[in-house]
């Protein structure tokens, strides 16, 4: 496994005077991290890497309509807990269906006029929504570090592409005093082997096999078909530019809604409605 995650000081921590703390949420702590956890090789290795640096690693597996077998993510979690008894892993299933519907459906006709086919970017919507829900989780629990299992070589996915959404997502978290980490980004294609060498996965090659015990998504084909059409007459660089413009608008709305909720967590804000799931 690669070296430990290098932590920088978070941009701005939640303090005792923040509205969330006043509303009963815990004050900020820098020794915990909330990881978007699917149970696959990349996010499992990310969890192992984070466990070297952080006392508590929250493995947040999100569920929504279209996802199947969310409990597959238990498999690597249980092995990690056995393999690293000194680390504290907390695995939980968090519903995020309303957040997904909000990101995909809000202003979709206007977005269609402006961005065309990109409104079918289901994977972009999904990861944006899951990061939004993870951000809310961090704010609710006073966690100052978030992480995902982004790896180099998966550039078609917005949240794993440094020219589409990676910097924008970091900026979103930073706007709320949280630092987003990509602990295995440089690992690229070697995550499977490293995970096997750590004794977490049962064989060196697990992706696209029956041993790949992670959340199964039935919606990726929509993204694949959109890309098939979009790239018929456009370059990949052009796709990156268009996707960044489109998803950045989504992130601006997310930032605005989160701020409104943060100012008064007890009020009837959009985020408060989405959390009723």
């Amino acid at each position, binding site marked *: 496994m690669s070296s430990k995650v290098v932590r920088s000081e978070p941009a701005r921590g939640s303090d005792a005077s923040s509205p969330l703390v006043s509303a009963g949420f815990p004050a900020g702590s820098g020794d915990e991290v909330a990881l978007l956890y699917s149970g696959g090789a990349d996010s499992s290795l990310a969890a192992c890497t984070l466990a070297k640096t952080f006392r508590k690693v929250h493995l947040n597996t999100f569920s929504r309509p279209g996802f199947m077998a969310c409990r597959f993510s238990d498999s690597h979690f249980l092995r990690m807990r056995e393999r690293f008894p000194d680390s504290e892993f907390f695995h939980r299933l968090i519903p995020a269906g309303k957040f997904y519907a909000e990101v995909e459906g809000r202003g979709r006709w206007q977005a269609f006029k402006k961005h065309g086919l990109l*409104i079918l970017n289901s994977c972009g919507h999904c990861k944006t929504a899951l990061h939004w829900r993870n951000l809310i989780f961090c704010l609710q629990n006073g966690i100052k570090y978030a992480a995902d299992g982004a790896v180099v070589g998966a550039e*078609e996915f917005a949240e794993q592409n440094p020219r589409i959404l990676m910097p924008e997502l970091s900026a979103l978290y930073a706007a709320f005093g949280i630092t987003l980490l990509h602990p295995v980004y440089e690992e690229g294609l070697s995550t499977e082997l490293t995970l096997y060498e750590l004794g977490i996965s049962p064989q060196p090659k697990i992706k696209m096999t029956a041993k790949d015990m992670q959340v199964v998504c039935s919606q990726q*084909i*929509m993204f*694949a078909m959109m890309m*098939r*059409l979009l*790239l018929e007459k456009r370059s990949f660089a052009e796709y990156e530019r268009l996707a960044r413009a489109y998803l950045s608008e989504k992130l601006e709305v997310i930032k605005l809604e989160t701020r409104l909720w943060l100012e008064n967590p007890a009020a009837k804000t959009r985020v408060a409605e989405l959390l009723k799931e």
Partner: protein
Amino acid sequence: MQQPLITIEGGKPKKRLGLIPSVIVCAAAIPLPPRARIYFVFFVNFVHNHILATARIVISFLGRRFTGALIFLAYYLAVGPMALLVRFLGGTGTAAADEGSFFTDKEPEDSIRERFGRQY
């Protein structure tokens, strides 16, 4: 049975998904609200990744394992009965058979020089 769905390789989509089906699915998905779109895509995924993929694998397996048996069945269940039916209805077989033989006379040897100048 799940097929790999990562369609981009070196910045280009693999041709695993047809252009026309993609146009049809995308056109149908655009007007759908998020919840309905999820179920629609679930159905498309089921057809593409389960029904078609399973059928492809089953046919491929049969083709590899039972080539001889399939030829035997094709001959005795399709070709043979069709030939008998044609014969019963008064058919005379293939047109070539009416010519008497598939073999034709070889050109005489003394025409080699002339034949060399007439290559096609």
